């Protein structure tokens, strides 16, 4: 539970998965759902190298975790992506704009990790298109189906655990989106 990012020797997490969103707002919970599915599928052999976190939003105390990882994959809901579709893109730390909202974006939390702890991992954001953000628990059928396929693909590409980087091609995305 605790990690110490101030000690580079302890930067032992190979992959950090962060699924974030509000599980009480239907498909907004797809990020936590995907990461929870992956967590359940991982055996003890992965416990030391893959960390799974589900969050409501990205908050400052995630920075030490991020700085401790070699790569981080954010999984989030998106209204900019067609419902049930997935986009994956590489992101980098972003020097913050003057205006900060009440939560951090993935590039901002990467920047916080870089500034505070001197490390910034490779990072990707996986965006899942949502159908409904209404109050309520559970995903809509289309998004739930996508979540399961996405979890399977991400799980597959986390192997082998000592792989130095996260290789993702447009073909992978196409496989998810085409079922």
């Amino acid at each position: 539970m605790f990690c110490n990012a101030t000690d580079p020797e302890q930067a032992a997490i190979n992959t950090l998965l962060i699924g974030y969103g509000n599980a009480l707002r239907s498909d907004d919970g797809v990020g936590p759902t995907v990461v929870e599915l992956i967590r359940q599928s991982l055996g003890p052999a992965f416990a030391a190298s893959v960390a799974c976190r589900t969050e409501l939003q990205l908050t400052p105390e995630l920075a030490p975790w991020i700085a401790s990882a070699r790569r981080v994959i954010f999984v989030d809901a998106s209204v900019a992506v067609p419902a049930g579709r997935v986009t994956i893109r590489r992101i980098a730390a972003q020097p913050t704009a003057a205006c900060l909202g009440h939560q951090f974006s993935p590039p901002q939390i990467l920047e916080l990790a870089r500034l505070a702890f001197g490390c910034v991992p490779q990072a990707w954001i996986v965006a899942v298109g949502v159908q409904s953000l209404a109050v309520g628990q559970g995903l809509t059928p289309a998004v739930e189906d996508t979540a399961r396929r996405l979890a399977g693909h991400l799980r597959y590409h986390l192997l082998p655990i000592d792989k130095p980087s996260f290789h993702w091609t447009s073909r992978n995305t196409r496989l998810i989106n085409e079922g």
Partner: protein
Amino acid sequence: MNKTITIEGVTRIEGHARITIELDESGKVSDAHFHVTQFRGFEKFVQGRPLTEMPGIMARICGICPVSHLMASAKACDDLLAVDIPPTANKLRRIMNLAQIVQSHALSFFHLSSPDLLFGMDGDPASRNIFGLIRDHPEFARDGILLRKFGQDIIALLGEKKIHPAWVVPGGVNAPLTAQHRDLILAEIPAALSRAARALEYFHTVRDRYPAEVDAFANFPTLFAGLISPAGLIEHYDGALRFVDENAAPVADLTDPHQYPSMIGEAVEKHSYLKSPYFRPRGYPEGIYRVGPLARIILAERCGTPRADAELGIFRTRLGRSPQSSFHYHWARLIEILYGIEMIQRLLEYPDILNTHVRSRARPNRFEGVGISEAPRGTLIHHYRIDENARMVWANLIIATGNNNLAMNRGVLQVAQRFVDGTHLEEGMLNRVEAVIRCFDPCLSCSTHALGQMPLCIELRNSTGELCDVLQRD
């Protein structure tokens, strides 16, 4: 010609608010108000729900301090069940409550208020945020992040998640502590203590830079209120609710929570959704009182842990027993961080802390229950009534921030009169108006809070609506 300055979107507080400053014909500040513009409605929409759902629902009031509402709500439900919770559950609830106080105080001090203290009230607004802190004071900022993480990780270890954990239930908690989790927390205590000590060292280097702010930041005599232990020690979970006067002399002790309406009245002002509680025996608004970390360390004889008591000694040597300036909330907050870490360690070292009997079970035995606890921002009261089917028929909540409403309003007026020149607006003078509010660390909503600089537009208009001056932040 009368004018009004409006600060729309008060920054670096939890939630959304507005400040208006009224000027007289000569441009002098004649009045000021702190408006809370959010409406929540929890007291109404919990009606009809079973009491067993209350802690879970009430925690949703806030994403910053949900644990505080869990505590007060669970205590009100304990009262409805008429049970004494197991001693181990009492300790475990206290640990979670203190973890909440540590993480919340860390957010308030390091992320929200220290940019003003380290860069100056007139410093570049572009740097007055956590990223500016990291660039110029990296170790300090890192300590702030890690202290908040310390508290959040404890909450997550106990309750499985750091926001809205469901672990605190009527009658106790729903799972005991494991030896592994206890040891994980204990292993982090030394580093957390070091970080808190460094923060205090840093604070001592800057606290004397602001004599004008100390003098004008809600600096007036009021009552102070908070929980206190039977031995006169600082208390956050149980004990009597004590009111003391401006000299820290006890005025009243509330030992039966059900009697709180005899001491606390609630006024409503047209300009805000936030109620204005007051000490009823003195009437409204003369019954103004303050709660929170400054109040708690004023009314307690001592903290009861060695490091916090040593720092409290320095505080009192420097400022006396009962300093009236709300600027000193910052120092009090750091003392409470130290206390919280020490007390978490003490509680974890009790031999019964791993006991598995952590919940008392009963059916409802009363129709009315009251729970009082200390949130990071002050005293929090949940008061419930249920019907014969254990469904909620009525609720009243006195939120910690509300207790400070009268003092925040008077503080805004005092700062505005001291610093605001109605003929020409400058960012630094308006930042001070916001900074006095930040001293109280108000939490005005559930999970929204502003970090750093937000878009802000302050317009100065005359009584005919003519625009006289504008200050714009992008």
